[in-house]
């Protein structure tokens, strides 16, 4: 009965009720939409990150700390056997090796600093979808030798076109200066600013040969079953790959010297016989035994931090919206209490206790909140779903603008739990907003309430 009176109370002033519900609905719809946008951007951003980096990256011990300098002398050796081992580890779905290095690109009198990756064409196509990123020319094919894919922006800057020759100047893994000639086979647009702005993608085999890193790589990308449980997979990988426990990272200046025969580690490119004898124990091998591993979350810590920051900023906006909606409810309920002062007096004369008056008005507030929230989340989810279907074009320069891998078309992501949470938030907010007016009603002095006209 109290509930019935409450519900009918809500319907007393239809316009005010409608307006209040509209405010709640709009606030909640905006919240749902905002959440969908956030989740959508984060999801697509994380997917892009994972597409670029795989779930886990394995390096030779000490590589990560030096990774900014793109060292080629902290490499994983015995690559074929290592890849086979990794492929057999539980939870590993796929893996591919890379060599990353830096240097100069020369073309037609222009030169430019660049970031280079040697990739396994098949692996990069599977894991990084690199073959799909070719916007001009073609992807690597069998029998190719010394061809490269050029980042879109770099191609523009260097006026490179498919078929053009270019020269890469860099150091071998042993520090010897080397120049290598490549032919542009394709132009790529990857959404990874490192590559798009100044990157060249080469065939790993060519890179191994030119950098004197046969059967070696600087990074192995591993993909597991899902992008969330990466830590477990990383731990499993390292446990298998480092059977003797975590490798000791050599300090600077005490680089491990090869003791093994250097037959397959020539000092100079193309020199397999060795011009003159160098004492074996003085040759610093670019490969190291043992592995270190990082999850994509660790590798993109700054981006994830940025996301957290963005989420916090959103929380503030969310808070403001909720407060606005709450103020609307509180105002409506106060007006309600005000208008029905006399009726409250009558209820009190009939023996209504404070608690009953409070629950009467709270019922009204919660009813407003329930209905408003329901309409709001349905509206918000509906719009989000439509936008998720259609996608929102953010313009193509967003990616380079914020230098974060970012899809140009945004798809809001509608998550059921998030919607339920928003709905509950709306209802709880109504309850809290209705509390003050309800208590105010219950505190009225009955004789004063009855005299009220």
């Amino acid at each position, binding site marked *: 009965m109290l509930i019935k009176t409450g519900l009918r109370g809500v319907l*007393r002033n239809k316009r005010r009720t409608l307006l209040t519900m509209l405010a709640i609905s709009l606030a909640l719809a905006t919240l749902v939409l905002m959440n969908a946008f956030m989740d959508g951007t984060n999801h697509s951003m994380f997917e892009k990150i994972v597409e670029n980096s795989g779930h886990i990256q394995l390096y030779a011990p000490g590589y990560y700390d030096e990774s900014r300098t793109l060292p080629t002398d902290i490499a994983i050796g015995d690559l074929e056997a290592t890849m086979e081992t990794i492929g057999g580890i539980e939870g590993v779905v796929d893996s591919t090796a890379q060599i990353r290095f830096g240097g100069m690109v020369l073309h037609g009198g222009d030169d430019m600093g660049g970031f280079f990756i040697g990739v396994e064409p098949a692996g990069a196509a599977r894991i990084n979808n690199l073959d799909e990123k070719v916007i001009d020319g073609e992807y690597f094919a069998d029998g190719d030798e010394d061809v490269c894919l050029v980042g879109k922006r770099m191609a523009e800057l260097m006026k490179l076109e498919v078929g053009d020759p270019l020269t890469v100047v860099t150091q071998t893994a042993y520090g010897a200066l080397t120049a290598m000639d490549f032919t542009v086979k394709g132009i790529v647009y990857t959404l990874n600013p490192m590559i798009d702005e100044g990157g060249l993608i080469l065939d790993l085999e060519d890179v191994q040969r030119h950098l004197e890193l046969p059967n070696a790589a600087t990074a192995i990308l591993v993909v597991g079953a899902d992008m969330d449980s990466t830590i477990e997979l990383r731990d499993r990988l390292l446990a298998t790959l480092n059977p003797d426990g975590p490798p000791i990272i050599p300090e600077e200046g005490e680089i491990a010297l090869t003791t093994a025969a250097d037959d397959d580690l020539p000092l100079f490119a193309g020199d397999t016989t060795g011009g003159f004898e160098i004492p074996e124990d003085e040759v610093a091998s670019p490969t190291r035994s043992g592995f270190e591993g990082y999850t994509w979350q660790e590798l993109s810590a700054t981006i994830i931090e940025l996301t957290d920051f963005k989420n916090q900023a959103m929380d503030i906006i969310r808070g403001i919206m909720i407060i606005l909606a709450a103020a609307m409810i509180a105002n409506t309920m106060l007006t309600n209490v005000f208008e029905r002062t006399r009726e409250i007096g009558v209820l009190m004369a009939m*023996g209504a*206790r404070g608690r009953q008056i409070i629950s009467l008005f709270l019922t009204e507030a919660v009813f407003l909140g329930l209905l408003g929230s329901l309409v709001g989340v349905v509206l918000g989810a509906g719009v989000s779903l439509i936008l998720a279907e259609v996608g929102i074009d953010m313009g193509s320069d967003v990616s380079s603008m914020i230098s974060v891998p970012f899809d140009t078309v945004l798809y809001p992501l509608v998550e059921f739990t998030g919607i339920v949470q928003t709905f509950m938030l709306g209802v709880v907010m109504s309850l809290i907003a209705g509390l003050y007016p309800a208590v105010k009603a219950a505190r009225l002095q009955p004789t004063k309430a009855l005299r009220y006209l």
Partner: protein
Amino acid sequence: MNDKTVLELRGVSKSYPLGRLRVGALNDVNLSVQRGEFVALVGPSGSGKTTLLNLIGCLDLPDEGTIYLAGEEMQDASKRQRALIRGRHIGFIFQTFNLIPVLTAKENVEYPLILGGHYHRAKGSELKELRERPAKLLTELGLEEYINRKPDDMSGGQRQRVAIARSLVSKPDIVLADEPTANLDTKTSIEIMTLLLEFNRKHNSIFLLATHDPLVLDFARRVVTLVDGSVAKDEVTAETEVANVN
């Protein structure tokens, strides 16, 4: 106080704040009312009639003096206790009816039973009787066709009859009516007064009617006159028929 005295006021005074001053509304009122009495409370406007009913009805507390309801002192009762007393022992009838517009006649009459938790406490045939009581009461008051109507669809007389049903539904010991006929025409007023008197005889409850309607005086068995917050006259105008009932 003998055991027939349900209501007793001793030295009751009440004043209201008016800016920095206080306006005296009641001044040293002594009154005792026996079970079954039908009392008219008369006096000019502002003489304190409403104030007196509010104090008796536990809606407010006196500044001085004591009110006894069924021998219980009201001064020390908590807010909650006074709400319970109102719900179980007192019925109010107002000049402006004060029905709840969103509820039907039956729901309005039912409301005090729900607020007082009567339905929760009753069981079996008692509960059945309680559930049927609002409709029965409305039928007795000639409102059979209006049971499911809302107040807005009713005339003043019909509304006041619903309000009377509401005040009587929990079988109160005291019914307090503040100017119950002021908004009604003479014919309807006579009907209403007849109904009230009938209930007074049937249930033996106290009726206290604040009024300056001379018509009400024709029905009253006792007339208490208030002037400037004090009892100026208290006379029995007809034999209370309580003695004849039991």
